[in-house]
């Protein structure tokens, strides 16, 4: 249609689409799915790191980790708010998460088993997230773009903090170094999976790219991540768990082994190490918090009535 063409022209011209403006239903739906999934990932992403807050090894590390997890909840807040501009409520999004209709990033279905994982999550998981998110600062939907700008600033801070933990661990006692290497071993392939399936197997991609909801292909971003991360691992004195890793002087690219995509799809299906527990934790938080939310709502209604009555009496 002409409307659709005009819409696409605006996007091609680099204009931002704003909430009240017309947009194709598919654009709206795709954005809701992507932003919702991203928001859910921030919320569920509190859990693997929250797992170590009570066991953080120093007061300073505890404070840093608390601040980080708090930031993640904040990111969730921005993203739910941005998604709400598309006409879906936060509660609807939560329900979709709890019922399993909407997903969150599969990386959070892996457990955090040692303190080094707090380093690996910051370094690799936030690192991969940033790789995905930096281009999204230029995404076509205004509220999403603005949320990503705020988020990216904090995420890169988190990544540096994660890397700092890895440095301490890798330069620490033999046990600490062992933990650091083990964390890299466990998180390397799941981090590569964060960019999604190989381009040839990826659905939704083309239209999303045209709409500037997706800015790069999965494989492009994955390559960029590997190229940046491998030298960082070397600097730490850790070994990337990939025998086929080689550097191509000409392209400047590393070639690397594909992750185990069968595992990826198993985890997506719900069979990862922590799927059940992560989702259950969120469901429990929600259902155990019902009385709390209801209490606040009831009070708000009572207060409104009281104010109205007082206003009436004052007339």
């Amino acid at each position, binding site marked *: 249609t002409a409307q659709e063409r005009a819409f696409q022209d605006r996007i091609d011209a680099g204009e931002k689409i704003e909430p009240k403006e017309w947009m194709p239903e598919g654009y709206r739906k795709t954005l809701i799915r992507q932003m919702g999934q991203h928001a859910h990932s921030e*919320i569920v992403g*509190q*859990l693997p790191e*929250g797992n170590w*807050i*009570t*066991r*953080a*090894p*120093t*007061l*300073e*590390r*505890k*404070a840093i980790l*608390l*601040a980080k*997890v*708090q930031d993640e*909840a*904040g990111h*969730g*807040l921005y993203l*739910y708010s941005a998604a709400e501009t598309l006409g879906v409520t*936060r509660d609807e999004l939560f329900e979709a998460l709890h019922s399993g209709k909407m997903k969150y990033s599969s990386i959070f279905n892996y457990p955090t088993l040692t*303190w080094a994982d707090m380093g690996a999550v910051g370094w690799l998981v936030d690192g991969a997230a940033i790789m995905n998110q930096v281009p999204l600062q230029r995404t076509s939907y205004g509220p999403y773009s603005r949320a990503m700008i705020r988020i990216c600033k904090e995420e890169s801070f988190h990544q540096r903090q994660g890397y700092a*933990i890895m440095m*301490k*661990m890798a330069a*620490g*006692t033999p*046990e*600490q170094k062992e933990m650091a290497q083990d964390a890299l071993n466990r998180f390397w392939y799941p981090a590569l999976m964060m960019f999604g399936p190989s381009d040839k197997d990826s659905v939704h991609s083309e239209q999303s790219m045209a709409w500037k909801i997706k800015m790069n292909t999965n494989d492009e971003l994955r390559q960029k991540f590997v190229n940046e991360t491998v030298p960082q691992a070397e600097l730490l004195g850790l070994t990337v768990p990939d025998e086929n890793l080689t550097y191509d002087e000409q392209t400047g690219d590393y070639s690397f082994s594909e992750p185990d995509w069968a595992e990826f799809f198993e985890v997506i299906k719900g069979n990862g190490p922590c799927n059940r527990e992560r989702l259950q*934790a969120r469901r*429990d*938080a*929600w259902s*155990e*918090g*019902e*009385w*709390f*939310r*209801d*209490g*606040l*709502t*009831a*009070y*708000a209604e*009572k207060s409104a009535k009281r104010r109205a009555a007082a206003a009436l009496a004052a007339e």
Partner: protein
Amino acid sequence: KPAFFDWLCRMGDTTLILGHRTSEWCGHGPALEEDIAQANIALDLIGHTQMWLGLAAEVEDEGRTADTLAYLRDAMKFRNLLLVELPKGDMAVTIMRQFLFDAWHHDYLGKLTGSSSPRVAEIAAKALKEVTYHLERSSDLVVRLGDGTDASRRRMQDALELLWPYTGEMFVSDEVDRAIAEAGIAPLVEDLHADWTETVTEILKEATLELPSGTAYAQKGGRTGRHTEHLGFVLAEMQFLQRAYPGASW
């Protein structure tokens, strides 16, 4: 000096353990705003801990640090109020405890800004800003949840009954406190009781909650190292890495 050290541990251990309990909510709160608020409170309290225990280590001057004090003492050496070591319970217990504690904490810090120890006054002034916000927030939530639904009122009332016997300890001085008071470092906690009771009574009334009747037998002992059975489990978890990897740097 030993009294000053002890008193500083009482301050720092109390914020440490309450920070620990608060942080247990991380990712499990009833609403996103609450997740953020609880993490924020925990963060503030851990910050206060670093200051109080940091000063305690300096005062002791035996090479310990805030971290070694936090991570390498067993329960008998901890000096926190019993109130803060009780399990987090439901959000009603968490919020009611925060309120009962904040009302005391806020007043106490206010007085400590006039401490004869400039270091104490400085820490108190920094902490007071944050705790002013904690008290505003917890009072507000007590009112809203108390005067919310029947279910939320019942939970808040139950939480109040549960916690009430542990509030007495905030107002009982011993030799340590008296020595500190004589040095002008801190007021006697007994002097806080009237104001605290007024604040609490007023907020609970607004919250349509009933003040527990009679003078409950005050559970006490935390400030001299006699704790509940809960603290040992908190420490086992909190201190694991420092205990398991002695001397490692993190």
